[in-house]
């Protein structure tokens, strides 16, 4: 009887240990997803957002990115390398065009092509209303590269996948690749 009691206690300890490991040491996939959840939370804007929250979110957005982040978009004028501070500033001014904004991510496909590099393909949906009262509802597929720096997954590259290419693809067009980082 005593033996069974000890076995049960042992099993309970093992289960609790596994649960604690899952809760307190989430796997890398969960950590990567968490960065997207934070990005979604900080980009989104409720209709009654106060100035303090607005400034705080603007500042927070920058912390999700590496010192330099590469953006590749079908609109060539938006493509390029942006500094963390620039991202915060641009995100802030972009948010100010909207009275309400909601960014959601779906269909995550996460791979780790190299140690401390994550490549994430996902669907991003942006909905909201501009300050002029115009409804916005845009969905795009994104390919993001995140790098683990000082135990934090940071965005180093974001590509808006151009599924339908109207224009001729330039010969110098190079796919966003984790090898660049």
């Amino acid at each position, binding site marked *: 009887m005593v033996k069974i009691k000890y076995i049960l206690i042992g099993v309970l300890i093992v289960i609790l240990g596994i649960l604690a490991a899952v809760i307190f040491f989430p796997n890398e996939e969960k950590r990567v997803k968490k960065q997207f959840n934070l990005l979604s939370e900080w980009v989104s804007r409720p209709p009654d957002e106060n100035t303090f929250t607005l400034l705080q979110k603007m500042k927070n957005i920058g912390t999700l990115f590496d010192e330099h982040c590469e953006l590749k978009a079908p609109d060539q004028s938006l493509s390029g390398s942006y500094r963390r501070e620039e991202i915060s500033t641009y995100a802030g001014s972009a948010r100010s065009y909207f009275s309400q904004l909601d960014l959601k991510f*779906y*269909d995550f496909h996460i791979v780790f092509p190299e140690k401390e590099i994550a490549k994430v393909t*996902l*669907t*991003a949906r942006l909905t909201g209303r501009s300050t002029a009262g115009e409804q916005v509802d845009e*969905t*795009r*597929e994104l390919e993001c590269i995140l790098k683990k720096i000082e135990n934090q997954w940071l965005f180093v590259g974001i590509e808006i*996948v151009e*599924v*339908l*290419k*109207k*224009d*001729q*693809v330039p010969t110098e067009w190079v796919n966003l690749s984790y090898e660049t980082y």
Partner: protein
Amino acid sequence: MEPTYHHGGVNFCWRLRTLFSEPKRFDVVAVRFAGSRVMLLKRVVAREDEQVEFRDGKLFINGKEIEEPYVRYPCNWNLPLRRVEKDCVYVVGDNRSMPIENHHFGQTSKSRLMGVPLW
């Protein structure tokens, strides 16, 4: 794809059609636009290695004007000549009443074609 298919309507697609055979010109296809859930219905107007062009709303393939009876609304698009790349098709919607920059169309990889609508 108005007026052929209505915006937001429900359609069932036959996936094997694009899996085992090449899409033909004028086929309506479902294009995987984002993730596994966002699809667009578009019409194939050109296949790989063909040249596509719009002049005053008229479609030209390899320099020849193509009749498009499914286009019902007036269109004045102009798009310079471009060649469709390998393993790609050129797709356009039937509703071309909006300015060219507001319409989702262009070259897409065949791997993005998810089937054809059943009706």
